[in-house]
């Protein structure tokens, strides 16, 4: 069985190679090839999953060792895979959602002459992402980690002729690199501490080393997670990433890649459990981000950017949960999966809306679309209900558990985190309702002469429907006598949190804040007419539109500062480092010119100098003897 694991990665990789090197002759079949390999990978995943279910919990972890990758001295990295319940969950999510989005893209990218390349990139992404979750050591994980970064770079900048797209792609890659720095240093630290960086030994030996090192490793891993999962302070790239085609946003920047950080933290649970300070940092980041993203989400008029804010915020929930330790890991992953469904669904919905609206993204130019694109409306609506945590839908189960766990952290910390989570829930309800209302309800704010909204073709709607189904039932399914938790427990270890407030109270509170959020949104956007041009808005609103000025900060401090620094260095390199050498040469020349003057051309001056020389010679000789 374990020999199939490599197949998971290989299939999309082969697809990518074919499509990217195949050249124009594959243009017509390109998208089918791409989807085929994606589906194939999904099929393999299902097979493996079935096999895994057949085994008892302890013996589910599979392992495949291909070959020794980098053996240098004591440093040995293997190309080996590890498929346990955690990886399995991700594999299913990635390949499943991935396949759906491949299919969706067939329709969405129909009119793009570079469609073949697009599917090549998508396959490349799948391969990298699978490598990330299947690696059995941190270095291999790092390969996948940067691989998905590359894929995301290529896909964000897919429409390279748009400078904005190219810039966004670059920004995404650079910000991620900052995170990657953390990961690589963490790996070095593991190597110097444990002499290895394979999951097994490292995670098993955490007890043997001091807490200081573990905290350091934990914080470095957190930095990596922040980069990849767009957590504060490295969140700035996600909004711009929406420059990419919508399927990309759905797959990479909602369902899978951005959740890699959560995977990393959960996978490294043992380290964090042994380093409470690191955990505190994690929950702090999570709490801050979930609010940050939510607030930003409220102010955006660009439907994709609004969803991006929401993604940020939802991942904040997951990180928060992951930071809570054994009481949270399982729920983090669970929310991750459900989120994968409904957020992907929402994005695909948004894509389908744009598809029908000539790629218009400004929600202020939408309105009253529910009649024109019913399927999109329904699927989007279900996704909406799921995300705000409407009772019975997936979001409800996963998010509710996280809030509960947050309180369960105990002490003031618990209250603060719980409060934040609740507040987040309220804001989520608000901005999602806002999106819903502005898009599908109210009067139309678009010109029927120019745009003719229409429902998308089947190849696009079917994936949306599937995802909608997922976002409705997944949560409930998982929660049937804690199926999901028990499934993950061998890997992440689970502990019931003892929350100061009863589970029922938490649920009630969630319901209340949810209603408040929806209510406010209804008063602002349902009752009143939405202006086609954004009003100036309050200070907070304006700040939120600018991502709470965090981008401007980056621009002023990092970009400008960097430019000045490099310019100065270039100048110094020329004037100082180079100048020193040239100066020496020049001074040589000057000296030469001066000495030349001695050669006056007059015999008698020569004679004088000879006489002088003779005198010196004699004097020196005498001095030597001291006569």
């Amino acid at each position, binding site marked *: 069985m374990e020999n199939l694991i490599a197949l998971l990665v290989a299939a999309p990789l082969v697809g990518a190679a074919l499509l990217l090197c195949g050249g124009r002759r594959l243009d017509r079949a390109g998208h089918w090839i791409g989807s085929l390999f994606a589906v194939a990978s999904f099929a393999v995943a299902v097979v493996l999953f079935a096999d895994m279910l057949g085994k008892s919990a302890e013996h589910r972890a599979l392992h495949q060792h291909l070959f020794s990758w980098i053996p240098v001295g004591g440093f040995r990295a293997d190309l080996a895979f590890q498929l346990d319940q955690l990886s399995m969950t991700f594999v299913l999510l990635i390949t499943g959602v991935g396949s759906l989005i491949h299919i969706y893209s067939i329709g969405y990218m129909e009119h793009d002459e570079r469609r073949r390349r697009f599917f090549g990139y998508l396959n490349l992404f799948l391969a990298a992402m699978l490598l990330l979750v299947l690696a059995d050591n941190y270095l291999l994980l790092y390969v996948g980690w940067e691989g998905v970064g590359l894929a995301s770079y290529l896909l964000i900048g897919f429409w390279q002729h748009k400078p904005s797209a190219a810039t966004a792609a670059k920004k995404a890659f650079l910000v991620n690199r900052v995170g990657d720095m953390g990961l690589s240093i963490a790996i070095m630290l593991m190597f110097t501490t444990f002499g290895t960086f394979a999951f097994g030994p490292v995670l098993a030996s955490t007890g043997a080393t001091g807490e200081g090192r573990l905290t350091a490793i934990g914080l470095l891993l957190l930095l990596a997670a922040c980069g990849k999962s767009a957590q504060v302070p490295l969140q700035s790239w996600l909004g711009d990433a929406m420059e990419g085609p919508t399927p990309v946003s759905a797959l990479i920047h909602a369902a899978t890649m951005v959740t890699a950080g959560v995977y990393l933290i959960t996978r490294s649970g043992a380290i964090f459990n042994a380093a409470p300070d690191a955990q505190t940092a994690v929950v702090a980041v999570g709490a801050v981000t979930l609010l940050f993203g939510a607030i930003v989400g409220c102010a955006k008029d660009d439907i994709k950017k609004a969803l991006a804010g929401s993604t940020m915020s939802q991942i904040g929930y997951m990180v928060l949960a992951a930071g809570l330790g054994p009481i949270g890991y399982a729920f983090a992953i669970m929310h991750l999966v459900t989120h994968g469904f409904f957020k992907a669904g929402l994005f695909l919905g948004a894509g389908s809306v744009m598809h029908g609206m000539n790629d218009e993204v400004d929600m202020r130019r939408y309105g009253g679309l529910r009649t024109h694109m019913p399927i999109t409306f329904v699927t989007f609506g279900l996704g909406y209900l799921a995300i705000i945590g409407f009772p019975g839908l997936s979001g409800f189960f996963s998010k509710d558990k996280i809030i509960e766990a947050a309180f369960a952290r105990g002490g003031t910390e618990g209250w603060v985190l719980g409060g934040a989570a609740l507040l987040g829930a309220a804001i989520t309800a608000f901005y999602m309702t806002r999106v819903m209302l502005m898009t599908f309800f109210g009067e139309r704010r678009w010109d029927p002469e120019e745009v003719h909204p229409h429902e998308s073709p089947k190849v696009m709607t079917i994936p949306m429907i599937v995802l909608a189904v997922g976002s409705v039932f997944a949560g409930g399914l998982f929660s049937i006598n804690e199926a999901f938790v028990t499934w993950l427990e061998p890997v992440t270890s689970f502990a019931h949190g003892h929350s100061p407030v009863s589970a029922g109270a938490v649920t009630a509170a969630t319901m209340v804040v949810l209603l408040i959020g929806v209510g406010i949104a209804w008063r602002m956007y349902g009752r009143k007419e939405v202006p086609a041009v954004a009003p100036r808005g309050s200070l907070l609103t304006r700040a939120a539109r600018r991502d709470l000025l965090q981008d401007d900060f980056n621009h002023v401090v990092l970009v400008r500062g960097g430019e000045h620094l490099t310019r100065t260095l270039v100048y110094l390199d020329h004037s100082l480092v180079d100048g020193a050498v040239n100066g020496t*040469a020049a001074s*040589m*020349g000057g*000296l*030469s*010119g001066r*000495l*030349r003057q*001695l*050669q006056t*051309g007059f*015999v008698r*001056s*020569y*004679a004088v*100098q*000879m006489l*002088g*020389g*003779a005198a*010196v*010679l*004699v004097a*020196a*000789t*005498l001095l*030597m*003897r001291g*006569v």
Partner: protein
Amino acid sequence: MSSVASVHSLWTVAAGAPDRIPAPRIEYAQLSPTLIVLGAAVVGIVIEAFLPRRSRYYAQLLLSVVSLAAAFAAVIGLAAGGFGSSKAHLAAMGAIAVDGPALFLQGTILLVSLIAVFTFAERRLDPAAHGNRVDSFAAQPAAVPGGTAEQAAVKAGFTTTEVFPILLFAVGGMLIFPAANDLLTLFIALEVFSLPLYILCALARRQRLLSQESAVKYFLLGAFSSAFLLFGVALLYGYAGTVTYAGIAEVVSDGAKQIDPALAGTMGNDALLLIGGALLLMGLLFKVGAVPFHMWTPDVYQGAPTPVTGFMAAATKVAAFGALLRLLYVVLPGMRWDWRPVMWGVAIITMLGGAIIAITQTDIKRLLAYSSIAHAGFILAGVIAASRDGISSVLFYLAAYSFVTLGAFAVVTLVRDAGGEATHLSKWAGLGRRSPLVAAVFAVFLLAFAGIPLTSGFAGKFAVFKAAAESGAGWLVVVGVISSAIAAFFYIRVIVLMFFSEPKTDGPTVAVPSALTSTAIAVGVAATLVLGLAPQYFLDLAGQAGVFIR
């Protein structure tokens, strides 16, 4: 009082038994190289006197080549006869040493001169005047430049074939110089090879004003320095009471058997020794062109006819350094601790001075002159080593250097424009484009000068620096290395000029030489590469030759 008596006894002895004066013994066989050359020179004069003008050129050429070749053969014979090592001894009643260094240097000088004769005899480069081929020497040196007499001479197709015997005389002197074993012989040899050179300098066909000026400068300064040298000789004689190297050395190292009271008076007086030694050194340093006695070098090199310059630059240096070595190693080893520091200073300022001043030169011949000064400095570093390695390394360096120099100047004769040789650097721009072969050859010589590996220049430089370092002169080596870095700069400048700059439209033409100059250049290149790639054989030679007889 006693001195008077001794002088008186002198007379009585003289009067008493004349037969007691020993008849001088001359080992003709062992002096044969010198004798052959000088004899040939005399014959050359006779030829000038009696042969008709037409046939003189060929007769002279033949004579010089044959005689030089014969002399070289004689040197080889002597060396093979073991005179270089086991049977080394003093000939001509101790006046002339026949030993390793002497033979090695004589061999080098003879080869160099042989090649120099080829460049002297070159008659293809200058455009034929009135249907007669002309070489680079004035038709009628006595005539006023541009005057009617000169034009007549040119019309008549006169050529100064006297240059060959004159050259031979100079060579004769040079052969004696490094072998001279007493100060008198040293002085005479010096004059014997200097005077002909003065004349040769004045004989250029083109730019005769410069030529004459160089001659007069060379002459006056040369005479000036030789006066100092002679005074030094006098003082040393005064100190030691003898002029034979062995004798002086004995006195210097207080090894004199019986000290007669007259000697005791002066012998104690080190001032005589030191001043005399210093002046003697100065005379020799002048000949090798060491700073601060180098002033004549650039002017003379520039003004003299290029073949002569090449000959001077190569042969004079060899001879002078030979003499310097013998003086320092045979006569003054006892006072090593006095002259070594002084020579340190001289070597350093010579290396640096030559290299630095050369940077801003604009005339190729002056450039080479300054480079020769810098090289003198490098060789001095080897001289200072004061070890057997030092001797052999210097010998090797001299051999290597002289061929490179000769070749380089031979190439200079090829690059010509309306006014004769185009020696201004600006004229050399783009030479590599116009005639790559010549430029490449010249580049090889320049790289050898710069001491780039795989050329003889590098092997030589390494040898002398190695010797110096082993004798504890590490910092001298560092200075040498730095100055060769500086020197590299201007050699490279010339290469850049030749290859990387666009040729000028009114640029010079490269004359196609006859077999003579071609041979000279070819030999130069061959020597440069052979001594660079496989120097071991020659190092062995120099190594075996590295012992002076005293």
